[in-house]
């Protein structure tokens, strides 16, 4: 019961970082206040995964999700995008090491697909999660970042959009 009280402020301290490691790579990190086995469970059990993978702010609806989290097993996510056709994301698990490592392919864009590696590193009851995405080419990475999955992320772009708009207005003829 005390844990709940404590968890609120702590949760906000755990910042998500995104770093372009190279032109083909992106590394995302985040710390969780729980042992690796718990974070791993929340990631690999489909009924739990569905609860967090699509944030409410995304404005997207997950129509279906299937995952056979075993080496060689496949997964498939289907999103409703409102007016346009539903979009599917799918691939295979290349590596599944309980509580420490997951590797899967992203095959929806064909051979250009990225390979995603997630590692769970436990230290003092906390887990450092590192998600690494390796694309075949820089173009594929940029396309991946701008892909349909994030079209619904409108509000997250708002702040930057404002900066972009005001900045380009500024740079224009005066």
């Amino acid at each position, binding site marked *: 019961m005390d844990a709940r009280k404590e*968890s609120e402020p702590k949760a906000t301290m755990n910042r998500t970082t995104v770093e372009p490691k190279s032109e083909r790579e992106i590394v995302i990190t985040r710390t969780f206040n*729980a042992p690796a086995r718990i974070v791993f469970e*929340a990631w690999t059990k489909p009924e739990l995964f569905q609860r967090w993978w699509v944030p409410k702010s995304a404005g997207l609806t997950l129509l279906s999700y299937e995952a056979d989290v075993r080496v060689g097993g496949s997964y498939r996510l289907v999103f409703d995008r409102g007016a346009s056709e539903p979009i599917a994301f799918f691939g295979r698990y290349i590596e599944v090491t309980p509580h420490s490592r997951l590797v899967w392919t992203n095959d929806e864009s064909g051979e250009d697909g990225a390979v995603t590696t997630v590692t769970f590193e436990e230290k003092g009851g906390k887990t450092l999660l590192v998600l690494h995405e390796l694309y075949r080419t820089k173009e594929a990475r940029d396309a991946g970042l701008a892909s349909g999955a994030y079209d619904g992320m409108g509000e997250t772009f708002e702040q930057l959009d404002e900066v972009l708009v005001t900045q380009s207005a*500024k740079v224009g003829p005066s």
Partner: protein
Amino acid sequence: MVQHSSARLDASFAALSDATRRGVLEQLGRADASITELAEKFHMTLTGMKKHVGVLERARLVTTEKVGRVRTCKLGPGRLSEEMAWLEGYRQLWASRFDELDKVVEELKQKENVDGRKKRK
């Protein structure tokens, strides 16, 4: 060339990783401002604001010019590339995902505590 552009990207990206600095850019998008004005607006010390402006300057997102005793800041030539906007959008997507994951993890943790106690009798 590649090296150069990714160093540039890193600098811009770091510059944008801070809410105050994003706010400063927004502000300067509306009108040029002195460091003193910016410090007041963002409830910061002059030194603190100078540091933020310095970071933005190095990323070429802001330029400054000293006229008399006043240093005026304006938006610089280093445009935010689409790529950076994507990256920031991407970060925010993962941040909201992980905030939700936090809730699931917290729930599992508590359940484990309760179950653990039961098992131990």
